[in-house]
């Protein structure tokens, strides 16, 4: 960045890029290299015997994904170093690495899908690797959004949400094209019965050839998503409940984002959220017997089995009920204790 001081001799602007003469040369060389290698891979190389021309995508896809992992790791490392050293260079490095990772992840997902269609016959399967890559992509976009937040009151809420849950991030995004899908998703999940979602997931898994989830996986995933949408709203409400004056005091004291969130906002937001989270915990636990209908051998299932073999209708169910109480009452009690411990005198 060039800074020509104009009036009142302002100080040199702090570094906002990793650029140096050396990196510019390297960048130019890389650009030439990318064009050259791209030409070799996409045009000059012969088609594959089996995959024909679509093999060429591999020459883009594999390096993209490989370097995506390198960039993500670099971003994580630089973020960690920044937290320790607080020197601008690490922050800039993390930002640069994240940008590269975002582009490469997008490229990897697209080329993978285009390549998958002729090779596997499908664009996409929801297996662990693809799904986690998609989630990584969304996380990286979220990270980019976060880095660009303007320090204004509205933006806080946007920041806020990330710390709770990724879902809440999108929910509060200023960009409605980001926000809308999240809102729609959260509202859809919250407004349809858990039972229906379970049946749907089970039917979907049965009909799918690629998805081989066990009943317990289905139960965990559906319960997890269902309650995550509730939790995201609870976090959002908790963060919004921190009075504006607290945010302003943090600004007036020139606190950085990390200090502001970890020391000022979250310690006040979390006690507000705890009662709801505790309720969700107990409610999610009580909803577990729904696993019965998708074939998870949980407590109710055993009670049913015992009834079938011993022909005693009531005792097994009473015992099952006692079993639930044995867990949920201490859980509720523990949450209440935690609330009390974390509570503070309000002004």
């Amino acid at each position: 960045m060039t800074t020509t001081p104009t009036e009142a001799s302002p100080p040199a602007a702090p570094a906002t890029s990793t650029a140096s003469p050396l990196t510019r040369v390297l960048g130019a060389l890389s650009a030439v290299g990318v064009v050259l290698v791209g030409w070799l891979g996409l045009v000059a190389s012969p088609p594959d015997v089996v995959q024909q021309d679509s093999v060429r995508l591999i020459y883009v896809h594999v390096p993209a994904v490989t370097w995506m992992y390198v960039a993500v790791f670099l971003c994580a490392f630089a973020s960690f170093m920044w937290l320790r050293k607080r020197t601008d260079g690490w922050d800039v490095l993390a930002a640069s690495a994240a940008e590269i990772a975002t582009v490469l992840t997008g490229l990897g997902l697209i080329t993978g899908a285009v390549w998958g269609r002729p090779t596997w016959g499908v664009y996409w399967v929801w297996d662990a690797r693809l799904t986690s890559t998609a989630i990584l992509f969304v996380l990286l976009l979220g990270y980019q959004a976060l880095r660009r937040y303007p320090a204004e009151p509205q933006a806080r809420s946007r920041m806020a949400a990330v710390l709770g849950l990724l879902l809440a991030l999108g929910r509060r995004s200023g960009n409605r094209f980001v926000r809308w899908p999240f809102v729609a998703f959260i509202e859809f999940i919250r407004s349809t019965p858990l039972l229906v979602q379970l049946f749907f997931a089970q039917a979907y898994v049965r009909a799918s050839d690629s998805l081989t989830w066990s009943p317990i996986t289905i139960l965990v995933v559906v319960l997890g998503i269902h309650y995550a949408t509730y939790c995201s709203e609870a976090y959002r409400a908790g963060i919004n409940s921190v009075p504006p004056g607290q945010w302003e005091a943090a600004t007036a004291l020139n606190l950085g984002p990390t200090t502001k969130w970890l020391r000022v906002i979250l310690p006040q937001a979390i006690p507000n959220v705890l009662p709801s989270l505790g309720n969700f915990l107990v409610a999610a636990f009580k909803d577990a017997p729904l696993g019965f209908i998708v074939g998870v051998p949980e407590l109710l299932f055993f009670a049913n089995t015992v009834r079938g073999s011993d022909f005693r209708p009531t005792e097994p169910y009473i015992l099952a009920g006692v079993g639930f109480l044995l867990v949920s009452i201490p859980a509720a009690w523990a949450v209440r204790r935690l609330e009390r411990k974390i509570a503070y005198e309000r002004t």
Partner: protein
Amino acid sequence: MSAPETTATDRDISAKGAAAVRMRGVDKAFGPNKVLAELDLDVEPGERVVIIGPSGSGKTTILRVIMTLERPDAGTIQVGGRHLYHQPHGNGLKPASEKHIRSVRSDIGMVFQHFNLFPHMTALENIMLAPVKVHGKSRDEARARGMELLDSVGLAHAANQTPGQLSGGQKQRVAIARSLANEPRVMLFDEVTSALDPELVGDVLEVLRRIAEEGKTTMMLVTHEMGFAREVADRVVMFDAGAVVEEGPPAQILDEPREERTRSFLGAVREH
């Protein structure tokens, strides 16, 4: 994020004769409501400026745009010679990065009408937070300085109490100490006695008087305490409808105002 404290050279550069605060053509509107209209205002280093005016006149907004709690719609603000919302770019200016704003903001502190202490921390922790986290001071150093500051506002005994256990006047004195711990060159006081019971106002004003006497800190105060304004201010600025009505030494503005609007405002205040 930024290096702990702006560098010594930064401070030296900005110290050379530049105005503590220089506002030029600052506009701010909330919806259709124009709160600041092309405001020009200069405050000299060490000067104590009291801003008076009817409520809703925008006087608090002046402080809030300087503290970066509101972003102006137009105009420039310089603090200690450095642009707050702009960075030099070629021969002109470009909008400043967050990092630049943060670096300039380290020269500014603000005390609020409603204290805004962090309720989950003790008085001492409130004061220590910024020195440790922003300026990279050791906890021992920050604690020692924090105790000194608490002592100077007469609250050394309350170091380990949380805001909930303190009276309004005590809270405000802790808030002032917390702001002082950052060693700002410019301190903004936004109706700091308005939320207090009358018998608690005196202690807070006493602390302000002491800061004024030290003369190191540039002070901008929005207040309804006319007696205090007369005693402490170098200059009183009468503000209404987003613009300066008149300004001058306290005796002139408070006793012989030229403008009708000032007269009627002072009349209304005195009746209470």
